[in-house]
């Protein structure tokens, strides 16, 4: 799960990380009022789940409340990487003496958390990893032991900080890690961490991603979910407990199991067409999920044919058939449907479907080819 910068800063602040004063605005008038309260100059920043905001013109400096209003007017409604900006963060501008990068990631290869830091802030860390990997400091946290003070010293002194600044920077790293570990985050970044000309240490930009599987015990974080940043069909799928991702092709896919769903998309491509979506109805799907899934697929006008691919193990083919028949009655199929099912109760399912006029297949490549043929020349 992703959250906005202003939400990330709330999390950081709760764990003792100092942040610039700021307010959220959804209209130019609110931005004006916020700037007036905070005292200009301010920075007006687009709040959107996409990187590259600065390059896209989504971050502007305003020297007066009027300028803040004009900046918000320009930014609100702007599209950044396909997402419309609906919120801006108005923040007191700071005078930068020095900026660095600190972050924590879940390191998949090491199966552990890793602290990452660089004496150069405001950079793309991925870019630096490619061009100058020796400029990146890393400390891996032993899972059963936790982050140790010596590791933070390695980071702080490694970035070249000396007294008296090394103490507040040490606290920043410690607090960032506490925030990361306590919230089931998968990534937490402060980029840049700014040392102002007045000697303050401030997190001027913050980013958090979270482990979806941890959200059941992170009620406060889960509330940060912004449905406005999600595709409407994907949002509905989440609510119905389906795994759905919209793609660009024209063959709608409904499959049980994530691996088989990916393999089904790949097979459609292999035979020369493009899938319209990834859709996994899950390991224990029953008739209702099947109907919900089909209703989401049918809503997409780009879909020219539907390919249903089921390997019944735990999922019973007859229950899937029941769902397909219910969808036909309640929703109607205005586009061709190719059904392949095999496994538990497949004979009963085929009989049910054939009686309703659906042809069925048991061979996956044969069925995939048929679905591709149906969209050829459409």
């Amino acid at each position, binding site marked *: 799960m992703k959250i906005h910068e202003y939400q990330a800063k709330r999390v950081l602040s709760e764990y003792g990380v100092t942040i610039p004063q700021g307010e959220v605005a959804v209209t130019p008038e609110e931005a004006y009022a916020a700037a007036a309260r905070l005292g200009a100059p301010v920075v007006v920043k687009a709040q959107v789940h996409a990187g590259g905001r600065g390059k896209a013109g989504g971050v502007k400096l305003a020297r007066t409340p009027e300028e803040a209003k004009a900046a918000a007017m320009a930014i609100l409604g702007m599209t950044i990487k396909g997402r419309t900006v609906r919120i801006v963060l108005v923040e007191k501008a700071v005078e930068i003496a020095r900026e660095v990068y600190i972050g924590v990631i*879940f390191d*998949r*290869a090491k*199966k*552990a*958390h890793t602290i990452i830091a660089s004496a150069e802030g405001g950079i793309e860390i*991925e870019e630096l990893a490619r061009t100058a990997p020796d400029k990146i400091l890393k400390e891996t946290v*032993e*899972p*059963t032991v936790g982050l140790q003070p010596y590791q933070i010293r390695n980071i702080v002194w490694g970035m070249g900080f000396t007294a008296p600044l090394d103490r507040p920077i040490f606290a920043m790293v410690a607090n960032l890690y506490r925030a990361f*570990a306590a919230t*089931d985050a*998968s990534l937490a970044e402060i980029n840049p961490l700014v040392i102002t000309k007045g000697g303050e240490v401030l997190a001027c930009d913050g980013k958090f991603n979270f*482990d*979806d*599987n*941890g959200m*059941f*015990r992170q009620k406060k974080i889960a509330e940060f979910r912004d449905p406005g940043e999600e595709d409407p069909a994907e949002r509905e799928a989440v609510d119905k407990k389906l*795994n759905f*991702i919209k*793609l660009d092709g024209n063959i709608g896919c409904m*499959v*049980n*199991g*994530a*691996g*088989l*769903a*990916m*393999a089904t*998309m*790949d*097979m*459609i*491509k*292999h035979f020369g067409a*493009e*899938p319209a979506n*990834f859709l*996994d109805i899950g*390991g*224990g799907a029953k008739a209702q999920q099947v109907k919900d899934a089909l209703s989401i697929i049918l809503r997409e006008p780009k879909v020219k044919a539907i390919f249903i691919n089921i*390997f*019944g*193990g*735990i999922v019973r083919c007859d229950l899937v058939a029941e769902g397909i028949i219910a969808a036909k009655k309640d929703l109607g199929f205005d586009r061709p449907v190719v059904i392949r099912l*095999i*496994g*538990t109760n497949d004979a009963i399912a085929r009989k049910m479907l054939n009686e309703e006029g659906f042809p069925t297949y048991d*061979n*996956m*490549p044969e069925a995939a080819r048929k679905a591709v043929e149906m969209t050829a020349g459409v």
Partner: protein
Amino acid sequence: MAILVDENTKVMVQGIAGVEGKFHTEQMIKYGTKVVAGVDPAVKEKDFLGVPLFRTCREACATVKPDATVIFVPAPYAADAIYEAVAVGVKLVVVITEGVPVNDMIKAYAFTRSKGVRMIGPNCPGVISPDRCKIGIMPGHIHRKGNVGVISRSGTLTYEVVYSLVAAGLGQSTCIGIGGDPVIGSDFVDLLRMFKDDPETKGIVLIGEIGGNDEARAADYIQKELGKPVVAFIAGRTAPPERRMGHAGAIIGSAADTAAAKIEILEKAGVKIAAIPTDIGPLMAQSLKR
């Protein structure tokens, strides 16, 4: 032979009181698995289909000595169940549960390794040595006993591949679903090592997908040490970047995560790549003839 489990493996079921736990315990017993105990803090009856029930692993292990445990416990309590099994000395822990937080798994991984316990999963279908022992949720009847080892990050896709093997006249020694999560107890290399030492296994099928470096490490091991033919399928050639494809671990973050990169590195290691999953049976049959 086979690996991990055979006809002598005594199995404990944790989370047996739930719907899933009951259903799959019955399926395992019907398949012939020796289920010796069921554990669940919520049990009220004394037994289920003849399997004695207990509230704790300690109570269960006072009378029986299971070789393996299978965990159906819901995600919030799955890590606790793993630690409980390790505490009573079980050496093989199969975690079926989907949705376990990464933070729980990195600790459970480090802990099980330090105790010499082999963990399979989480978020996996389990392990089966056909006609001998099934620990998990896979449909037993599609499998045949034979000489091909199967290691997979997926569930239903594995069934598809097993079906393809059987259609090509090939049975399996052991099939392991290693799980679709970013942190799993055993990876491709762990199990390839075991298959290398198993005389019954003549060839191995790998079913990988986007995300992580397990396939790349497997390629390195296959090239340097394995000495048995390998056929692989990698799912997700059409997966878009930065999107989680159902499995928590199936996400493209960098170039090395893509299906294309994994296919390239496996091919260089001499692995035969199936373009579509149904090609696996014929490709393996060909490899074994040489």
